[in-house]
């Protein structure tokens, strides 16, 4: 999966990020902006806000999306999901996200040493 495809996946799953995405990527590489950047700088804050707000609906969507990424069988998607998202969430020290993760992403999350 290339950068554009993975960014498209992000926008399909979280259309509410579209405006922010457009602004954020407008001075970078558009749809080819690196996904560590778009996922860490757009989806991660979205997830943190959902955690702070205890927004069950959003957290379910986020957990489902992360599980999808780690089970796609695509190296880039897995790398972004683990290093970009799960590592960031784990570092925050709020384990609430655990209950929203699927089997594979939860195993990844729990195996991270922090």
């Amino acid at each position, binding site marked *: 999966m290339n950068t554009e495809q993975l960014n498209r996946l992000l926008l399909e799953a979280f259309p509410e990020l579209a405006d922010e995405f457009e602004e954020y990527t407008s001075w*970078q590489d558009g749809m080819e902006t690196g996904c560590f950047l778009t996922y860490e700088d757009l989806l991660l804050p979205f997830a943190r806000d959902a955690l702070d707000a205890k927004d069950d609906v959003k957290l379910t969507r986020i957990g489902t999306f992360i599980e999808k990424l780690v089970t796609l069988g695509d190296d880039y998607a897995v790398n972004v999901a*683990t290093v970009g998202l799960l590592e960031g969430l784990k*570092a925050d020290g709020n384990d609430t996200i655990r209950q929203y993760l699927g089997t594979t992403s939860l195993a990844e999350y729990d195996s991270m040493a922090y």
Partner: protein
Amino acid sequence: MYIRGKGVAPLEVMTVGGFSSGLFSGTSGSPQLSLSGGGGDSTIQSASTTGSGTQREALLNEATTDEARGIVKELYREGANVGDGGTADAIREELATGNPVGGRSHIQKGRERLRQIERILQRNPDHPDRTLLERLRDDLRNALEGN
């Protein structure tokens, strides 16, 4: 054995246990040392070189813009303890040992952040955090080049 911070052009270089530490722009105090086995030779690294906090905290305190703070936060995750806790040192560890930190490669992340910082500096030559961003850029570039 890998040497952290090699190649960085810091404003102040602090030597800890024979290893040069890179990104700090100033501050003093008694460094706290942590021992961390990388792969192969043991490596002595400074978990904190300010005496009052981590590299992450020092860089966050130095940053004056949300843009720079955001980059520091993602490059230096809370609690990360390989080298100075930054992505560049994770890359150095990975390249030196062949073992990705946490079992997952940080190289692509480093490449993307490097490109982003270069873009920011090109776009805004008078960026208020230019010095900090240049040091982050150089650190990532050196790490990716195996230095």
